[in-house]
């Protein structure tokens, strides 16, 4: 097996991007006759060969159902699945593998917490605090449970640059606050929120905190114990892993007292028609056959990025972000959306007189893949007073040449819409 970290011609940031790109077969294609420039990583990332090989190997050699069999294949599958859980535990520095619940994605993780912790802790007049920059997945589950329980949502406002107003957050924390749920890294603005500080502030008021780390885990080092998060969610497909697998981390203490989410096999200890008792953590929250291959693929993705080093990936992306920010600022009539002091990996923008949808179509013709629209953040769009943005988002395999291609394509936009 090739260890990417040992094949190394260090760039300024210490990673050999040219070498890394060879690990991603999907990047070798042309789009409308031009080389693919994939800048839609906040929507989903591409997968390295190591992940593809792990998925193939599992289904070719080790596939069996987990936890229930006594035959060799089921032992191998169970071992691989539980080893994946430990890999994830170490990746985010959770205290125990029992605190890692495999879900379908981050959205499911948030829904799980809303429907179990939320339902059992919220009553009439209680409050859940979120922010104005949240993705719908960190808004709607709370709206649903608040409506059911007669509780209400309080929203931390943001500055025009896209930073949270911490004084307002302080004001919102009160005796009725039962949970705070905040994004770590904004998928629209790129803002990195001071979550460690925010968690400390909430804990001083006895309020637990959920952090949505969907965009964060592959751009920053995440240590859930250092952060003090009560819950942390993320999703595999944004971390160079397969779709259909996500992670909910919760402290053992808080997970222990939560009622189960979905009922069925595996999450039980014993079942009779008179009474059913539930399984221990984390299985209490993993009903039915899990996405075994997905977990194994996710672990392979985690191994891949830790093999390179999140610090080095982060440094490369930071450099690229600075280059891209400068380059885009030179395009006439272009305004960057999201200019907080602490940000990473995401460049949202609008252009005078051109709707983002049109920008997206035109740059697609040049092989450049960006995303346009409200990015599942309609309240944020409303706050910013715009219907949509165009968004380029970076990953470890992106290069300066690709940013140049984006800028050239944006000049095409200008030309067409002169």
């Amino acid at each position, binding site marked *: 097996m090739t260890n990417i970290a040992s094949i190394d011609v260090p760039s300024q940031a210490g990673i050999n991007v040219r070498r890394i790109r060879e690990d991603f077969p999907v990047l070798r294609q042309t789009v409308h006759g031009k080389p693919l420039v994939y800048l839609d990583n906040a929507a989903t990332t591409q997968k390295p060969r190591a992940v593809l090989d792990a998925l193939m190997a599992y289904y070719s050699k080790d596939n069996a159902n987990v936890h229930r069999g006594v035959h060799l294949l089921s032992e191998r599958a169970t071992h691989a699945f539980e080893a994946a859980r430990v890999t994830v535990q170490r990746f985010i520095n959770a205290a125990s593998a029992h605190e890692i619940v495999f879900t379908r994605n981050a959205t499911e993780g948030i829904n799980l917490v809303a429907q179990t912790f939320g339902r059992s802790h919220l009553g009439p007049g209680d409050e859940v605090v979120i922010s104005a920059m949240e993705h719908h997945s960190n808004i709607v589950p709370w709206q649903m449970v608040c409506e059911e329980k007669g509780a209400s949502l309080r929203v931390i406002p943001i500055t025009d640059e896209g930073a949270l107003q911490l004084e307002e957050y302080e004001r919102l924390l009160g005796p009725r606050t039962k949970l705070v749920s905040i994004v770590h890294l904004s998928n629209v603005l790129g803002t990195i929120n001071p979550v460690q500080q925010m968690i400390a502030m909430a804990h001083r008021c006895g309020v637990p905190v959920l952090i949505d780390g969907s965009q964060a885990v592959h751009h920053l080092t995440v240590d859930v114990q250092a952060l003090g998060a009560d819950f942390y969610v993320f999703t595999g497909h944004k971390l160079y892993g397969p779709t259909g697998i996500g992670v909910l981390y919760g402290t053992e203490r808080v997970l222990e007292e939560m009622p189960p989410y979905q009922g069925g096999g595996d999450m039980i200890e014993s079942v009779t028609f008179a009474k059913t008792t539930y399984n221990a953590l984390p299985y209490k929250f993993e009903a039915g056959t899990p996405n075994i291959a997905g977990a194994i693929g996710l672990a392979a993705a985690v191994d891949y990025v830790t093999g390179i080093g999140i610090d080095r990936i982060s440094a490369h992306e930071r450099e690229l972000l600075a280059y891209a920010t400068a380059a885009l600022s030179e395009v006439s009539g272009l305004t960057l959306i999201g200019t907080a002091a602490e940000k990473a990996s995401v460049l949202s923008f609008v252009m005078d007189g051109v709707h983002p*949808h*049109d920008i997206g*179509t*035109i740059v697609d013709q040049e092989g450049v893949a960006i995303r346009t629209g409200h990015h599942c953040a309609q309240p944020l769009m409303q706050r910013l007073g715009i219907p949509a943005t165009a968004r380029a988002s970076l990953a470890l395999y992106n290069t300066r040449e690709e940013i140049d291609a984006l800028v050239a394509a944006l000049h095409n936009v200008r*030309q*067409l819409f002169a």
Partner: protein
Amino acid sequence: MSDLRELYQEVILDHNRRPRNFRAIEGATRRAEGFNPLCGDRLSLYLKVEDGVIKDASFQGSGCAISKASASMMTDSVKGKTLSEARDMFEQFHQMVIGHADPLALPERLGKLAVFEGVRQYPARVKCASLAWHTLRSAIAAKDEVVSTETSSATEGHG
């Protein structure tokens, strides 16, 4: 860029820059809202219908160049048409953008609207071009009623 020119033809760019009938209609008899949640294109359509004929058509809203140009050209083309003629035009336009129409027959049926033929090469944009037309169809299907841009209390007491 020649492929893009098939979608973003000069007349479409012109209608985007200077949309025709970009206003509300006071005393509109039909009104319908259109919204494309995938991209945020929004449209309010106003019609003034008398004796089954569209006397005036206009729109307001925000959206991409394709949706705006489509709404602009649509409102121009349905003025003076009967409701059933407008409904037919919806069908023809729809068939064209989803690629089922006979390209040779387009100009005589749709006139200037045939410029949107290029949209069928861009499936992601078909909804942009047809938003205005789907909204028109809703407006045609609705009943005649005074849709006032003023408050309802202003029209109370009038016989």
